């Protein structure tokens, strides 16, 4: 007789790996990459809109002229020239900053990781919007931080609810390390924090002594208006700001940044060095050359027009096809609309039916740390062209109708499925 030990390291894993298991829902997304499926799941920028020939010439020239530097180790904080340009980019959203306070990271996802690493001990509380970006929730979980959600509405995070939550946590003696917020074109909710609320949120946070972690990958992708001043533009204190070139240029380069108060920045650089030594010189120099030699703001306008057309397509199609009882947000920028399904439906439980119907989305449960969100789903309109979006919504509407029929057959006793939540980290192309 012999026991087969498929994982001889089972007893040695850290507690933070709990929950890192295979998931049926995650596996279903494997099908979403096939061309037969209209994927409204992934938040992938439409890179095809880039002038790839110009980028190719630019990269070739960079390697030819500066290859030894591009292929060498760099500084843990990132290249000074790029950090200066990042400050110019941030000035478009009203931020005045010094390049000394910028740390370049491997995508803003690494910035999230570093900030959480230097602030959170196991059991510490992170306050976050309900719902919240799935990639951030995965990071918080990996440091065993506890996420406490605060509700949002059409105007973003609700300041009064934030106030109540912070007060309650203080009464309970729990340590809130920071508020994680995506104020512009929220992932997944598709809403933005209104201008009046920006100062209110900052005031509430200041009153409770809570640091604000402002994550702003979509700020320049508004369809209808000029960019609104960032939270960090309104105060120099108490805000750590995360930025990214993934949506304004290209996510494959993995270049993001964090702007932090001086003392925090020192720790971030040390943490970054411990983690990756330095961000890649190569991709930093590609971004710097792109900003310097290409009409990048014009390209952002091109992206905006692409996404505006797709946003219009998805909103029109949902209005035309979705059954009564469904509601959704109307994003004024960014990549996502957040759908509430008719009563009784569970988006996680419905996903296999959707995959059979050749359409994919991300079930809402992925965006909550507390198991809620079953009736929600995130639809991304950034990647498929408008006619595919319309086809995808038509298919999804049929799937919802079928699911309603099955639910009606078995009645309210059928409850909701237990496997709705995506417990494992989201695959990169879904984040």
């Amino acid at each position, binding site marked *: *007789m*012999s*026991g*087969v*030990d*498929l*994982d001889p*390291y*089972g007893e040695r894993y850290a507690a933070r790996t709990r929950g890192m*298991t*295979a*998931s*049926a829902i995650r*596996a*279903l997304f*494997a*099908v979403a990459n*096939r061309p*037969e*499926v209209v994927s409204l799941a992934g938040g992938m920028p439409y890179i095809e809109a880039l002038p790839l020939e110009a980028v190719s010439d630019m990269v070739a020239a960079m390697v030819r002229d500066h290859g030894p530097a591009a292929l060498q180790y760099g500084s843990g904080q990132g290249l000074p020239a790029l950090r200066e340009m990042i400050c110019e980019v941030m000035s478009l959203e009203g931020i005045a900053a010094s390049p000394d306070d910028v740390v370049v990271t491997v995508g803003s996802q690494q910035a999230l990781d570093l900030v959480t690493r230097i602030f959170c001990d196991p059991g510490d509380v992170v306050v976050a919007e309900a719902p919240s970006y799935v990639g951030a929730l995965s990071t918080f979980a990996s440091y065993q931080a506890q996420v406490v959600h605060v509700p949002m509405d059409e105007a973003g995070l609700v300041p009064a609810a934030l106030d109540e939550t912070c007060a309650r946590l203080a009464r309970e003696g729990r340590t809130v390390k920071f508020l994680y917020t995506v104020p512009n074109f929220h992932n997944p909710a598709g809403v933005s924090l209104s201008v009046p609320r920006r100062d209110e949120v900052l005031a509430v946070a200041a009153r409770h002594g809570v640091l604000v972690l402002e994550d702003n990958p979509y700020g320049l992708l508004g369809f209808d208006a000029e960019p609104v001043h960032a939270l960090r533009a309104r105060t120099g204190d108490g805000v750590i700001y995360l930025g990214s070139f993934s949506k304004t240029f290209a996510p494959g380069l993995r270049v993001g940044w964090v702007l932090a108060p001086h003392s925090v920045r020192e720790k971030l650089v040390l943490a970054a060095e411990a983690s990756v030594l330095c961000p890649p010189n190569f991709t930093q120099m590609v971004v710097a050359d792109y900003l310097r030699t290409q009409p990048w703001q014009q390209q952002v306008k091109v992206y905006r027009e692409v996404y505006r057309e797709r946003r219009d397509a998805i909103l029109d199609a949902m209005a035309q096809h979705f059954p009564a009882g469904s509601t959704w947000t109307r994003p004024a920028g960014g990549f996502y609309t957040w759908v509430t399904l008719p009563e009784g439906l569970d988006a996680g*439980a*419905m*996903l*296999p*039916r959707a*995959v*059979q119907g050749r359409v994919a989305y991300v079930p809402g449960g992925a965006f909550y740390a507390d198991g809620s969100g079953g009736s929600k789903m995130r639809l991304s309109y950034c990647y498929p062209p408008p006619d595919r979006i319309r086809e995808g919504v038509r298919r999804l509407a049929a799937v919802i109708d079928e*699911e309603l*029929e*099955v*639910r009606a*057959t*078995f*009645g309210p*006793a*059928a*409850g*909701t*499925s237990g*496997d709705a939540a995506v417990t494992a980290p989201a695959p990169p192309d879904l984040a």
Partner: protein
Amino acid sequence: MTADGGVRRVLVLAGGLSFERDVSLRSGRRVAEALRSVGVEVDERDVDAGLLAHLAEHPPDAVFIALHGGPGEDGAVRGVLDLAGVPYAGAAPHACRMAFDKPTAKALVRAAGLHTPDWVTLPHETFRELGAHAVLDRLVERIPGPLVVKPARGGSALGMTVVHRADQLPAAMVHCFAYGDTALIERFVAGTEVAVSVVEDAGGSAEALPAVEIVPKDGVFDYAARYTAGATDYHVPARLDAEAARSAAAVAGAAHRALGLRDLSRTDLVVDSDGTPWFLEVNVSPGMTETSLLPMAAAGGGRDLGELCRTALERAVARGRSEAESGPAGSHRAGQA
């Protein structure tokens, strides 16, 4: 093909559009590696609109189908390979169709004298037309005790629920119907869960590999328990007494024959406290991933996975040759002969 009837170049099909695409991709990679390790040249490919053109341009000696679920297991892809005149390892389309449909497979093995838990097969329409609660009430009266609800077709325990109380049934039905239109509801048999893989040698005699005993740490062998290394304890051979082990092997062999399978298959069984093996289902395209049962059984039996796969492919090549010579009706190759 080499002069001695061996295989030189094979195509491994993996991926597909089923719920088990991810598992299939992993199975395919594992099989391809195993075959390469025994000197076989391997191409790997998804099943898509380019497949037939690819087969015409680069005809392999034989195809190994590492597809799970849907067309990969229900005979559809094999039917297409028959049309293309390309030999493949494993059962013929008609046998797959019966084996993949769990209620049909259960009926056939019961007719062959094997034990399989009592069951009912019900499509969603039946519940809608006759009233879910009336039907479920009758079902609970008829098959008392814990029940297993699962899609009539499919694998990896997707859509499966073990139901301990009648009030859990509606949710289990809804879960199941998200994966398919027809549900199989069967009596839950408590006991030792085992999987017995059957492989045929070059001469076609079927041999049962050592039974693999499955002990999921959370009690249920669901998707996470299957594909998370360490989430399930396995024992090879299963901790059965000699007689129970013999009868489990015999049942797997009998199911393989009764369903007209060939080359390789895996039968999932529960051995109850009396030592009686109960047939649950059979897989015509067993999982081949790092956590899958057939590779574990092969290792437990001291067999090389690459050799096993190669033997199955050699049998396919030999069949292809004899069909080409005898020219079976309806075959593409016969039409050309």
